[in-house]
């Protein structure tokens, strides 16, 4: 162990509910156990030893006044902690300069970066140079994935030796001893129900609405409610209109989707972990993220996770976690979790052998269509048994024109023109609260039309035996 030091940690802190606060208190516990003399400074009253409004130049200068009393300054960095929103270019640069002063005055500064806007590194003066200078005044920068590190180095051109990757969950400890059965009893979840869980702060970029849409698709395929359930658990991080509106929309979506429940409210660390333990699959359909504490906490309990491939999640995700690219991938991954056999059947291997004998392209094509339809949940439930592959393939042809329309995706905020990316990111951030729900709604309508068309078409198709040969004969009869 290193020599005991006087350490000042700057962070949001319990009992305030915040992912960074939960992270900070676990690191505080570790530092104290190592024998250090730790004091915590939080932006508002909390269990921290001190509190100080850290926003803007004034906050950073107030911090600068204090840091000389300590051997080490540890900062859990999130821009919202220090920068006014919105802030002018001058104000932003001044805050960066004042923060840089605080970091330089400290005997040793260690910053754990939980979020930062990479585009700031190449932003025009005075914003960009001030941010870079501030970051260069830090002795040790810690990020949580190698992807973040590369992006960070590329964006801010920092001495690589100063930027380290630390295990996001390195200080994490379990908050519950309950097993799955106990956790389910506590939460009132039946033992035999497949439980999907999306948990964390409820805000548009977390994409929990995508999980609800995916669950609706499962239900349409007979794999969702009532044999499965989706619980969305968390609270709105800040009571801003767009976040509250997002929650309202989630509630509306849930109300229209059997088996989905929104548990909006305060979640203790212990309750958070109990939800994880009770879950069969943790669904993290983030639209954007740096790294995820939920991923780490799920790993603490060996809970399977499906997440979108955004930010540094590919690096952070433990072995076995499923990363998906889009909403269809999400549906497929959830489907595979809830019914592995069906998924394999839909995907191919366990669906039985492909048509044998002399190559019959039509039969193979029908099989492909049938398997594709099953994979996206288009197999209708019928009293008289499933339609043949040929009949199903024929039926799903009807929806083909709609399925050919690609899901709506907002253009990425990038540009080859200098400065344009930064501008686009700003525009994206400013408009996301309005546009994301519209995009989600359009795509939901799209999926609903496809599902409805498939179902109507399949139901109007006469049912015959399950073999491709029968299907072929049926087709001949039909024609």
């Amino acid at each position, binding site marked *: 162990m290193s020599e005991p030091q006087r350490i000042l940690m700057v962070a949001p802190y*319990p*009992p*305030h*509910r915040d992912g960074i606060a939960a992270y900070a*208190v676990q690191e*505080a*516990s570790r530092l*104290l*156990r190592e024998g250090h003399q*730790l004091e*915590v400074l939080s932006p*508002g*009253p*909390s*269990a*921290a*030893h001190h*509190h100080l409004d850290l926003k803007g130049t004034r906050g950073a200068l107030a911090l600068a006044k204090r840091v000389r009393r300590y051997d080490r300054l540890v900062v859990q960095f999130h821009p919202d902690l220090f920068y006014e929103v919105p802030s002018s270019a001058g104000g932003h640069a001044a805050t960066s300069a004042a923060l840089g002063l605080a970091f330089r005055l400290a005997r040793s500064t260690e910053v754990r970066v939980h979020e930062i806007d990479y585009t700031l590194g190449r932003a025009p003066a005075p914003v960009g140079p001030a941010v870079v200078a501030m970051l260069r005044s830090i002795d040790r920068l810690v990020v949580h994935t190698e992807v973040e590190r590369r992006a960070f180095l590329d964006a801010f051109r920092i001495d690589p030796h100063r930027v380290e990757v630390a295990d996001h969950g390195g200080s994490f400890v379990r*908050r*519950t*001893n309950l097993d799955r059965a106990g956790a389910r009893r*506590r939460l009132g979840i039946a033992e035999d129900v497949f439980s999907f869980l999306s948990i964390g702060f409820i805000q548009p970029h977390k994409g929990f609405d995508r999980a609800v849409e995916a669950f609706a698709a499962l239900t349409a395929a007979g794999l969702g409610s009532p044999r499965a359930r989706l619980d969305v658990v968390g*609270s*709105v991080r*800040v*009571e801003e209109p767009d976040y509250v509106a997002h929650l309202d929309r989630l509630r509306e979506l849930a109300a229209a989707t059997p088996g989905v429940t929104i548990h909006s*409210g*305060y*979640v*203790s*660390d*212990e*309750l958070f972990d*109990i939800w994880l333990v009770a879950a069969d699959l943790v669904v993290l359909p983030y639209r954007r993220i740096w790294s995820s504490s939920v991923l780490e906490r799920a790993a603490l309990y060996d809970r399977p996770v499906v997440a979108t491939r955004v930010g540094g999640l590919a690096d952070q995700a433990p072995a076995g976690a499923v990363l998906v690219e889009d909403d269809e991938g999400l549906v497929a991954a959830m489907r595979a979790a809830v019914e592995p056999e069906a998924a394999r059947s839909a995907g191919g291997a366990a669906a039985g052998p492909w048509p044998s004998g002399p190559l019959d392209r039509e039969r193979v094509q029908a099989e492909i269509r049938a398997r594709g339809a099953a994979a996206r949940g288009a197999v209708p439930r019928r009293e008289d048994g499933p339609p043949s592959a040929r009949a199903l393939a024929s039926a799903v042809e009807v929806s083909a024109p709609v399925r050919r329309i690609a899901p709506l995706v907002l253009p990425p905020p990038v540009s080859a023109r200098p400065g344009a990316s930064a501008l686009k990111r700003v525009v994206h951030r400013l408009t996301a609260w309005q546009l994301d729900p519209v995009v989600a709604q359009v795509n939901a309508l799209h999926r609903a039309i496809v599902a409805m068309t498939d179902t109507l078409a399949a139901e109007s198709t006469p049912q015959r035996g399950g073999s491709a040969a029968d299907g072929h004969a049926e087709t001949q009869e039909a024609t």
Partner: protein
Amino acid sequence: MARPTRSGRLGFVPPRFGPAVVGGAEAVQAEIARTLADRGWEVEILTTCARDHFTWENVFPPGVSRDGDLTVRRFPAVVDTPRAERAALEARLLAGERLTLGEQQRWMNDDMRVPELFHHLLLHAEEYRALIFTPYLFWTTFACGQIAPERTVLWACVHDEPQAALELFRPLFTGAAGAWFQSEPEHELAHDLGLATGHHRVVGCGMHVPDGYDPEGWRRRHGIEGRLLYYAGRREGGKGWERLLDGFARATAAADLPFTLVTTGTGTVAPPPGLPGRVIDLGIVSDDERNDVMAAADAYLQPSRHEAFSRTIMEAWLAGTPVIANAASDVVRWHCERSGAGLLYDDDAELEQCLRFVADEPAAAAALAKPGREYVLDNYAWPEFVDRIEECLEAWV
């Protein structure tokens, strides 16, 4: 029950502890702690250096000390904000507004906090078999009770008040290893609020039976003659004190009542005009003194609508004194109806009639109190109460 193992250290975490600390929850916790220590448990008190729950001035020295068989660890209470935001949010809450989660968090944190206690438990919670917190409303319980929830037991003191419905508190209850309730109404309320989902039990509360009473000696010592009514505890709006004074003043004026109202405890008395010499404040008194006043009184008044148990009405019944209580308290109404030893009022007019009855029919009023003593002895004897506490500890943690 199986013989208790009494192994492991118990940590009691009241916001205040020590001489001259007035508060039902704090007093009971101290007494339970002492009894458990007597029975062989290793018991620590983890608390603040404060005595007053308004100023939270640190009057006791921080650090470790001994109080009989108890180890007492004190940590400085911190109040470093004007608490203006809390007051504003609380006003909105009491007016029936819904606070957002963020506002609830600011309401909770803009008050007395004890960071050093938080960090002590962050490092040492595992050294305790159980950590017993009371009451639910205080920062010490809210913030520290969630550090090691598997060891947390709540002496909840849930009242039917807007704060109890704040979603902020739900995980504290649902995550705790267990919760004790003192009455069926408190238990039902906890269920209604979704706070009784884990281990919990109605353990009641324990009462020590005084060896005897000396009302005449007390009168002589204080030079107080004539018929009197008594109120003991915190003299504050939340306990219905101000409303009681108004009602007493109206009743006295209307009915020419013969009573003097004697009060003991903390807080400002401030009787309204029209009651010259009719209200006597004795401040903080010993348990024996309190018992003697109970026995000297024609009736004990319980104006609070927020009671989790109400020890004072039990003390009155043990002393053979009838109780006149605010019917708005489910708990007190429950006790009065079950025991048959208390009168209830819903408004000033009914309070006046209660007082008229006691004034006009002293013998009947005294007879009214008789089943009260039996009620306390049958249900709330101290040793059996502590047995129930031990059973829970052995089972839950």
